[in-house]
């Protein structure tokens, strides 16, 4: 599924980012690399969304979130 469809308070595993090289590199440097686990803090299904990666919160434009593939992540404690 794509990140823009993700539901609030769920955890997702980032699979891949389909964008220009520069954007991809920047996202990885910000901690959003394939394999990382993110939570969705805020998604109104319109406008930008806020995602959490560890303790930081990053807002991403919807068009960018459309290009990020994720899968639901069931956490096991």
């Amino acid at each position, binding site marked *: 599924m794509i990140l823009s469809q993700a539901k609030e*308070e769920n*955890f997702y595993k980032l699979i891949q980012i389909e*964008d220009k*090289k*520069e*954007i*991809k*590199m*920047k*996202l*990885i*440097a*910000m*901690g959003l*690399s*394939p*394999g*990382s686990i993110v*939570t969705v*803090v*805020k998604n*109104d299904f*319109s*406008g*930008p969304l*806020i995602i*959490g*990666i*560890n*303790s*930081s*919160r*990053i*807002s*991403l*434009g919807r*068009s*960018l979130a459309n290009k990020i593939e994720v899968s639901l992540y069931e*956490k096991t*404690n």
Partner: protein
Amino acid sequence: MKKQIKVALAGNPNCGKTTIFNKITNSRHKVANYPGVTVEKKEGVLSFQDCSISIVDLPGIYDLNVLSEDEMVSRKFILEEKPDIIVNIIDSSNVERSLFLTTQLMELEVPLLLVCNKIDLAKTQGVETHFQKLSSFLEVAIVETIGNKGKGIDEILKAIVSIAVNGKVSKGVFVKFSEDIEKNIDIVKRHLEHKNLNQIRWKSIRLLEQDPLVIKEQDGQTLSLIDTLEKKLFTENVTEERQRFISRLSKEVVKRSFDDRQTVSDKIDRVVTNKYLGMPIFLIVMFLMFQMTFSLGSYPTHFLQNIFNKLTFAISSFWNTDSMLSSLLVDGILSGVGSVIIFFPNILLLFIAISILEESGYMARAAYVMDNVMHKIGLHGKSFIPMLIGFGCTVPAIMSSRILDNKRDKLTTILVLPLFPCSAKLAVFALLIPAFFSPFWGGMVLFSLYLIGLLLAIVIIKVLRKTIFKGENIPFIMEMPPFQVPSFKLIFLNAWDKLSIFVKKAATFILGVCIILWFLSKFPVDHDAKKDYEEKFSVNQKEMQSQLAPIFLNEFKLQSDKQKYLKNFELDLKNPEIKNLQKNFNEEVKKLKSEKSQKELSYSYLGKIGKFIEPAFKPLGFDFRIDLALLSSLAAKELFISQLGILFADNISLQESLKSNYSQLTGFSVLLFLLISAPCIATFAMARKEASLFFAVFQFFALTFFAYLLTFTFFQIGRIFF
């Protein structure tokens, strides 16, 4: 001789870099930073254990691949200024991400000190890091700190000195990439080794990643070598392998108890960025900001106004004659500079408000909320941050446009920034609006000015994005710092810092210009006007005497006759007729004085300049005095007030003189023109620096043209109705 150590502070945004910088330097930094985002480096110098340490705080970066210009400032400093030590500050609650930059910094072969900050926050979030293990893995020294509590600050300094003095250079380890990548790196490295360069591993990697800035420095021989090598997907692979290296390392040293508790900050975020609530909350915050600036500011403003009135009276009564020095002090300096100083409380409050927005973390949310609106006009939310800062001062606003990721957004934003009235323009509004409008309408007028500025900005942006600056939008990526209760000490100090720029400007530049303007308004001396005034005055005086004498004598006779017989009767020579005469005389003299100053002004250099440009602005409803004030405001917007203050120096209240000299329609026309027209010199210079000379000139004339066109239309249509 003390040992000199040059230290650069580098780290991700929001890692607490600036807090640590302030703690280390005790806020004794040299370059005053404007409110808003750190987009320029700050330097502080201190002595510690016989060493002189100069510390530079750099804008936050995630990596050394540069997208925006604030990141460029950091990269340039690290690469070109060659610091002795890089202090890499890490947010301990987010070690994984921070290490990405760390591994890149290590490739630069500059001694590195790792500062793991916010260890208390990490603990509460269930993140446990084995710092000793991390230190031995990376082969760098680590200091643990809690920046906002000042814990570990001395340890940082000790570590810096011990690295510098002992020469114990720990540059850390390199990320080992896969064989294919390393093979290519080796080829380039061996080539560069002959050229006696430093940082060759880093340069080799960057060359293979085709970093335009590193490529630029190389000769043709090197470039042709690079051309022969396989570079496809090189960057992707390097980044991925770096990432993999870090996650392997993190697994060893970081233990994270999976915490799905939503933080308080997240809960606040759900409300303030809510689809329906976000915008109203944003508007309320904006309203409160300006309300606070005005209502709270009016008390100290009145207080200052009183002081200046008393000072004026004291100085002019000290001389009691027509002295040039007195005129310079009263008409030039007090009227000119004083009229600007009384608005300082407003400016300070506005800076405090902007500081609060920034420190609390709301600024990023405002950008988020505005993203939808900004998107419709072809920019994104990030552009709103410079605009918000622009309400304080356009100069730092232009600087902060560096956070924008592409040139097109940056230029568009800079172009419209003067339309967001800065605090100096606000001071002019604060003078003009009450002069022409009742308090109720005043608020509406002020609001409408901000709205007109905003609407105009939107139109200009839309037009630009459809014509010169066409192209697809770049994605919106922005870190949202957690909400926090701002430190009021910090905010006040910060705002005071910004105000001091205005104070310095008033004491130097504005003062100088005021003296020049005063000179231009007084010279050449119109002796005829003076003689004429004295003649007319003595005619009046004699007439008054002759009228007053019989009434006075009569009244005296009347009262003294009563006194003769009545008990407890004292003379009181007031009588309605005398009062009336007195009033007439006062008015007559006032008229003569203003006539004299009008004549003198027309005769002066300034008057001649004003009369020369008057025809051009006549269709806008302006007379030569307003033209002159507008002309002065090109140097700094506050000077608009100063100039009017000097021109109307003879009267008691500037606002009253304005009210009696101009109509409401003219008043609003002036406001409108001032809102849009040419930016001040400082803005022009900053636009030139951040964009180009052509751009700054274009902005200057385009905005003035718009201002003229709109004001002309408004005044001419308004004249039909009023």
